[in-house]
């Protein structure tokens, strides 16, 4: 390779570095790949809708984690608050309708959030231990309540609730008739683009819209209101806030209440929109994935949203055909191969090997096995979380007082 071509590879044009360009480019490559490899449901309308439905609960958990951590408290109990939301949402939902389920789930989550505040803020218990105990309490409490409330009810058991009604769905009027012909036309990239738009804009649950609306609302509340300023101040420097009359306890209680409520809402989402009943273990670590989105998103609501979509997309893979996941494996393999080649060109041999090995492994797997079995897809979001946290940028700036209990010197 000549020196000029190497230089050209090293200094790419600016437009190629833009996120929008990369998303469009990645979409086009995957679209062509799925066409060539005969995996039609990668960008199907249903698949995109599923991604939305799997992203929303993670987003809600992530926003909950954001509220808590901005006030300086790590909310390991998010998973338990989500569990409480699923159980109470289903219990009230199947008897008195989704509205009651919504209220019950949010209330239960908030209550757990306030208990976390009582333990970690008032009593100064280690925040991780307090959160872990709450997870245990939620799991035990819901199982006990199921044995009382669900056993003996037709269609239910100790591990499942009766069917829960769903929220209404809405569509952008007219878009269906406008884009369906393009979706069915079978034109390589165009049809997939139409399907993506249709998936995002038709049959969307109102609860999904509410979840998305909570992102700008959270940003506005935390960064544009006096309340938000105080919560963030308490998370950065509680002593300074306290000396100015902003009581850290009060704002941490408030933030944890909101945090629990959001996690509870995420639980309600799981039992109503993402499925249609309560199942034991339904949250499957989504509370913890929500915590991860906050780290990935550098404690900023917009990046938390991006993280939720990444994890939601991998979470939704379980609803796809096995061959579709295989196509994604090829896409990921190609990406790793490109990175490996670029590292090699830059004479970074270690990096080339580091990315070359997974690239080879993924492409070889696809060549030999072609599909990814469901058991392995089941942990795709968890593995993605691990990889993202391991390889993500490291210039993170968490709230300065995160995880540090606040006590005044006078009353330790």
């Amino acid at each position: 390779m000549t020196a000029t071509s190497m230089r050209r590879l090293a200094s790419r044009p600016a437009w190629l570095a833009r996120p929008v360009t990369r998303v469009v480019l990645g979409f086009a490559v995957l679209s062509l790949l799925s066409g060539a490899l005969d995996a039609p449901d990668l960008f199907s309308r249903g698949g995109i809708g599923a991604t939305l439905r799997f992203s929303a609960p993670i987003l809600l958990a992530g926003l909950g984690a954001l509220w808590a951590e901005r006030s300086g408290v790590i909310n390991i109990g998010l998973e338990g608050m989500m569990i409480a939301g699923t159980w109470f949402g289903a219990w009230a939902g199947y008897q008195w309708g989704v509205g009651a389920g919504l209220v019950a789930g949010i209330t239960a989550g908030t209550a757990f959030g306030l208990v976390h505040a009582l333990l970690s803020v008032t009593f100064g218990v280690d925040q991780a231990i307090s959160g872990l105990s709450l997870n245990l309490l939620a799991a035990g409490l819901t199982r006990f309540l199921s044995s009382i409330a669900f056993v003996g009810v037709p269609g239910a058991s100790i591990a499942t609730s009766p069917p829960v009604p769903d929220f209404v769905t809405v569509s952008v009027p007219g878009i269906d008739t406008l884009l369906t012909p393009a979706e069915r036309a079978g034109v390589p990239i165009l049809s997939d683009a139409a399907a993506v738009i249709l998936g995002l804009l038709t049959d969307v649950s109102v609860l999904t819209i509410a979840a998305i609306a909570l992102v700008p609302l959270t940003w506005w509340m935390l960064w544009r209101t006096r309340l938000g300023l105080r919560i963030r101040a308490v998370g950065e420097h509680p002593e300074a806030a306290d000396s100015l009359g902003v009581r850290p306890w009060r704002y941490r209680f408030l933030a944890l209440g909101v945090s629990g409520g959001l996690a509870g809402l995420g639980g309600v989402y799981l039992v109503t929109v993402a499925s249609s009943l309560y199942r034991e273990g339904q949250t499957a670590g989504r509370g913890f994935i929500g915590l991860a989105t906050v780290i990935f998103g550098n404690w900023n609501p917009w990046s938390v949203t991006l993280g939720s979509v990444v994890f939601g997309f991998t979470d939704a893979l379980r609803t796809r055909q096995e061959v579709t996941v295989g196509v994604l494996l090829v896409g990921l393999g190609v990406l790793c191969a490109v990175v490996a080649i670029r590292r090699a060109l830059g004479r970074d041999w270690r990096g080339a090997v580091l990315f070359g090995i997974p690239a080879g492994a993924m492409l070889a797997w696809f060549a030999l096995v072609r599909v990814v079995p469901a058991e392995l897809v089941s942990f795709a979001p968890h593995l993605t979380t691990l990889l993202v946290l391991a390889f993500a940028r490291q210039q993170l700036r968490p709230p300065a007082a995160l995880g540090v209990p606040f006590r005044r010197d006078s009353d330790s």
Partner: protein
Amino acid sequence: MTRLRGAALLLTAPAAAAGLAFAVAAVILRLAGADPIATLGDALAYGLQPTTLVAVVNKAIPYYLAGIAAAVGFHLRLFNIGIDGQYRLAAFAAAVIGAAVALPAPLHLALIVTVALVVGWGWAAIAGLLYVRRGVNVVISTIMLNAVATGLIAYLLSPLRLAQQAPGSNNITTAPIPESGWIPPIALPGDVGSINGFLVIAVFVGIAYWLVLSRTTVGFEVRAMGFSERAATVAGIRAPRLALLTMAASGAIAGLVGLPQLLGASHRFGLDFPAGLGFTGLSVAILGRNHPVGVAIGAFVWAFLERSAQVLDLAGISKEVVAILQAVIVLSIVVAYELVRRVRARQERRYVAQAVEGAPA
């Protein structure tokens, strides 16, 4: 004298927690329409029968191992939530390899235990490395690794791969481990059953844990780091190396958690292999304040509660009430310990203030 008062103060925490738990139990039983005193009496009487006690001890062995695994991490505030995945993956690997080889008895057993230790060690070391090298929160990484372990086991535990359909049932299991790989039970006089032979290894682990922590350099470094990370670092203790070591050690001990069941009872790994023992381990470690004897008490109490709750079903009360009781005990005990700590700190300050005032100028 102060020492005695300190010990008394320390014991008030568990006592208060137990009192609160019993109060909660009484309220729940009352709400369920049962006579609290009589029902709890029945449960206690059942729990104290010799055959039940033997069952309780057998149940407590894996709890104890999981508790020690959790306690190892707790010293450095490393919350190893991944004990669950570590022991299941370790037991699975041990079951597969144990069934595949033929060796004389002591070697066979040693090989199986070694496999379990190494797999638990390695699986936890992933989380340790991610923490030390990339700063990934241990709680999050170990939770994710649990999910990965569950998926891997589900994939491999299939008749197409490393397992077989158990005859006459829906269970899918690995091949049985030949008798040379079993751990012999400890026979008891009378007709009360027998104790799982793994108790010996559990006791050995507890003693080793205590020895390493209190009598070795590494143990000293771990305790120093637990008291004050800053002071320990200034003193030249390398925090990352210690964190990695501790995490891996926690995982190795976690690898043993599934073995009492595997080597003493089922002799194969199936779909019905117990899960969730890691979370029990976290609870009993909190309960026992990371002390080898305290954790043993915690494990026994947990097993006792679960076993004696069997009676509740007869009274028409779901035995799941125990799960709430356990959570209440953990919650109230952490609060009680924290309050006791504050009271002691205040007493100490007062004592120092008096000593300073009383001293000649």
